C-alpha cells in the first residue's frame, strides 16, 4: 500500500538529511533497513502507537536545539568499578574512554571494525524482527544511518560492568548510535548507560542472549531538560537466559523508550522496569512489547512515573503469549504519582494470549500522595516537602528493586534524591 503523500514527503526529507555509510560488513543490513523505512514511513500522530506522543520533533530533518545541563552534581556510577566508554554528542571519545579490553568480553566499534564481523548476523536482524506486528520506523532509520556504536561480544563472566557515558555539549547535536550485544551461553554482563547524549538522540541496542546467558542493563537518562530521545532495545532470549533492564529518567521534554523482547527459549526470564520523574513540559513514554514464544518463561514490566506541574507520562505495554508458550508467567504494572491536577498519565496495557495454561496479570493506577501518611510524617516533625519526597522515593521503590545489584539500586536512589532536593531548595 502506498504511503500517504504527507508521510512519504516527511520520510524522504529526513532520509535526505543523512548519508548511507558505504561498504563494510553492515552495508547489506543498512540498505535493507533503508528500504524497509521507505516502505513504512516515519511515525505520524495518527499511527496507533504514536497517539500519545507526538513524533514530529523526533522525525524532523533538523534536531531542535537543547541547552546542556550545568550542575555540580557528579555523574552517576562514579563509585562503581567499571570500564568506561564515552561518546560526546554521539562521537566516540578515545581519550576519555578506557581501553576497550576486558576479560570475558570483546569490545569493538561499529565505525571502523574489521570487515568480516560476528555482528553481521545480529545487526539489523533483531530490529527487523521487532517491526512486526508493530512498526518502529525510527529504529529502521537508525539501522540505516547509525554513525557509530559498540559491538560487545560476551564470552564469559565479565570482570566488571561496561559503562557507556553519553555527553551532550553542542546545542543542536543529533546523535544516532547502534549497539550490538551478543551474550554467549553461560556468559554474563552488566551494561550501564548514563547521560543525555545529544540535543536529539536516536539509539538502538540489539541484544542476543544465548542459552543460560545473563544480561543486566541499568540506565540513567539525565539531566538536560530540553533534550529529546528515542531509544529502542530489541532482545532475543535463549533457554534459561536472563535479561533485566532498568531505566531511570529525570527531565527531558521528550523521551520515548521502546523495548521489544522475544522469549524464544524455555525457562527464560525478562524484566523491564523504569522510573521517571518530571516537571512541566516533561514527556516520557515507555512502549514495551514482550512476546512469549517458549514454555515456562517469566516476564515482568514494572513502571513508575512521578509527574508534576503538568508533566505527561505514557505507558504502552503488551504481553503477547503465543499458542505454544504454556506456563507463561507474565506480570505488568504501570503506576503514576500525579502531584497536581495538571499532570497526566496515559496507559494502554495490552494482553494477547493464545495459550491456555498461563498466568498473566496487569494493573495500572494513578494517584496522589496519601494524606494520612503525609500527616503522620509531618506530625513527627518532617517538613511537608521532605515528607513528600520520602513518599515519592517510596513510590518508585518497587521499580528500583528490580535492579539486582544493591549498590546500583543505591546509585539510582541517590540520583532521585538529588533531583528532588534540587527542586525542593529551588
Amino acid at each position, binding site marked *: 500500500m502506498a504511503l500517504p503523500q504527507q508521510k512519504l514527503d516527511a520520510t524522504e526529507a529526513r532520509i535526505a538529511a543523512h548519508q548511507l555509510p558505504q561498504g563494510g560488513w553492515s552495508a547489506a543490513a543498512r540498505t535493507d533497513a533503508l528500504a524497509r523505512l521507505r516502505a513504512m514511513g516515519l511515525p505520524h500522530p495518527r499511527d496507533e502507537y504514536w497517539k500519545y506522543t507526538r513524533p514530529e520533533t523526533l522525525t524532523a530533518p533538523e534536531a531542535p536545539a537543547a541547552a546542556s545541563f550545568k550542575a555540580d552534581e557528579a555523574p552517576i556510577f562514579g563509585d562503581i568499578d567499571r570500564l568506561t566508554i564515552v561518546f560526546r554528542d554521539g562521537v566516540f571519545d578515545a581519550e576519555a574512554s578506557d581501553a576497550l579490553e576486558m576479560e570475558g568480553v570483546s569490545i569493538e566499534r561499529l565505525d571502523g571494525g574489521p570487515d568480516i564481523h560476528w555482528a553481521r548476523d545480529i545487526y539489523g536482524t533483531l530490529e527487523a524482527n521487532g517491526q512486526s506486528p508493530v512498526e518502529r520506523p525510527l529504529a529502521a532509520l537508525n539501522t540505516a544511518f547509525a554513525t557509530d556504536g559498540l559491538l560487545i561480544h560476551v564470552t564469559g563472566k565479565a570482570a566488571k560492568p561496561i559503562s557507556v557515558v553519553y555527553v551532550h555539549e553542542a546545542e543542536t547535536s543529533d546523535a544516532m548510535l547502534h549497539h550490538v550485544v551478543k551474550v554467549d551461553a553461560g556468559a554474563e554482563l552488566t551494561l550501564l548507560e548514563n547521560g543525555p547524549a545529544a540535543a536529539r538522540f536516536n539509539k538502538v541496542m540489539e541484544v542476543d542472549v544465548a542459552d543460560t546467558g545473563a544480561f543486566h542493563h541499568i540506565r540513567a537518562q539525565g539531566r538536560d531538560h530540553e533534550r529529546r530521545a528515542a531509544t529502542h532495545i530489541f532482545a532475543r532470549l535463549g533457554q534459561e537466559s536472563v535479561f533485566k533492564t532498568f531505566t531511570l529518567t529525570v527531565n527531558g521534554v521528550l523521551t520515548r523508550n521502546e523495548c521489544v523482547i522475544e522469549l524464544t527459549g524455555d525457562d527464560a526470564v525478562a524484566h523491564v522496569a523504569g522510573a521517571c520523574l518530571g516537571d512541566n513540559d516533561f514527556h516520557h513514554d515507555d512502549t514495551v512489547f514482550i512476546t512469549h514464544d517458549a514454555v515456562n518463561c517469566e516476564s515482568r514490566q514494572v513502571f513508575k512515573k512521578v509527574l508534576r506541574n503538568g508533566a505527561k507520562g505514557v505507558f504502552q505495554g503488551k504481553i503477547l503469549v503465543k499458542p505454544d508458550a504454556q506456563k507463561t508467567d507474565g506480570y505488568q504494572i504501570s503506576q503514576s504519582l500525579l502531584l497536581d491536577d495538571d499532570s497526566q498519565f496515559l496507559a494502554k496495557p495490552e494482553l494477547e494470549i493464545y495459550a491456555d495454561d498461563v498466568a498473566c496479570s496487569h494493573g495500572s493506577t494513578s494517584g496522589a500522595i496519601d*494524606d*494520612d*501518611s503525609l*500527616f*503522620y*510524617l*509531618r*506530625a*513527627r*516533625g*518532617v*517538613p*511537608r516537602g*521532605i*515528607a513528600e519526597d*520520602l*513518599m515519592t*522515593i*517510596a*513510590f518508585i*521503590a*518497587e521499580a528500583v528493586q528490580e535492579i539486582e545489584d544493591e549498590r546500583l539500586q543505591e546509585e539510582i536512589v541517590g540520583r532521585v534524591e538529588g533531583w528532588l532536593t534540587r527542586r525542593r531548595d529551588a
Partner: protein
Amino acid sequence: MLQIKNLQVKLEEEDKQILKGVDLEVPAGKVHAIMGPNGSGKSTLSYVLSGRDGYEVTGGEATLEGESLLDMEPEERAAAGLFLAFQYPVEIPGVGNMTFLRTAVNSQRKARGQEEMSSTDFLKLIREKAKDLKIDADMLKRPVNVGFSGGEKKRNEILQMAVLEPKMCILDETDSGLDVDAMRLVADGVNALRSEGRGFLVITHYQRLLDHIKPDVVHIMSNGRIIKTGGPELALEVEKEGYEHLKEEVA
C-alpha cells in the same frame, strides 16, 4: 505547659460542632487523663492540637509553653515539642523505619537550630531505646508500621516518643488493640519518659491503662466539653458507674 482555653472546633466539610469550649491545663511534670464515651470529642482534640486537616477552629486557643499551637504547621508543632501517639499508626510502604526516624529527629533538630545527629550517634540512640521496648532490628529495618501487629505499632509509637524526646505527649487511645502484656510494655515505656519537664495527656476509654500509667488528674469529656475534673479516683468511679451516671450528675 499545655494550655487550652475555650477551644471550639467544627468539621471543615460539614456543619458539625465537635468541641464546644474545652478548657484544660497540663502543667510540666504531670500526667492528665481524659476519659469519655465514644464521640465525645477526645480524638478530635488530639488531632486539632497536632494539626490534622479537616477541622476548623471556631473559637478559643491552645498554647504550648506560651506559644500558640493553632497557627503552626504540624511539623512546627512537633519541633516545638508536641507529640501525638496515634490511635491508628499509619503504614507507609517503601519508607524504612530507620530512615523515617532519622529524618524526623534531624528535621526537628534543624528546626530548633541544633546540629544534626551523626548516623553513628543516631544508631546508638535507636538501639538503646529499641531494646527497652523489645523492638528488634528486623522491625527497625522494615517499612514504617508495614506488617506490624497492633502491639508492635503501638510500641513503635512509644519508640518514636523516646527518640524524639518531646515536651508534651498526647496518647490517643494507646491501649486500644493491646493485650495485657503489650499494654504493660507500652506503659513501662511511657513511665520511663515521665519527668519534671514533660507533660502527658492520656486519652482513653477505660480505666485499665491508668492502672499502669498513674495519672495526677482525670478529666471526663462528654459532648465536646470537659464535664468533670478530679483525682485518679474519678477513673475508678467511671469504671464502676459508667459515663451515663456522670452525665446525669453534671446535668
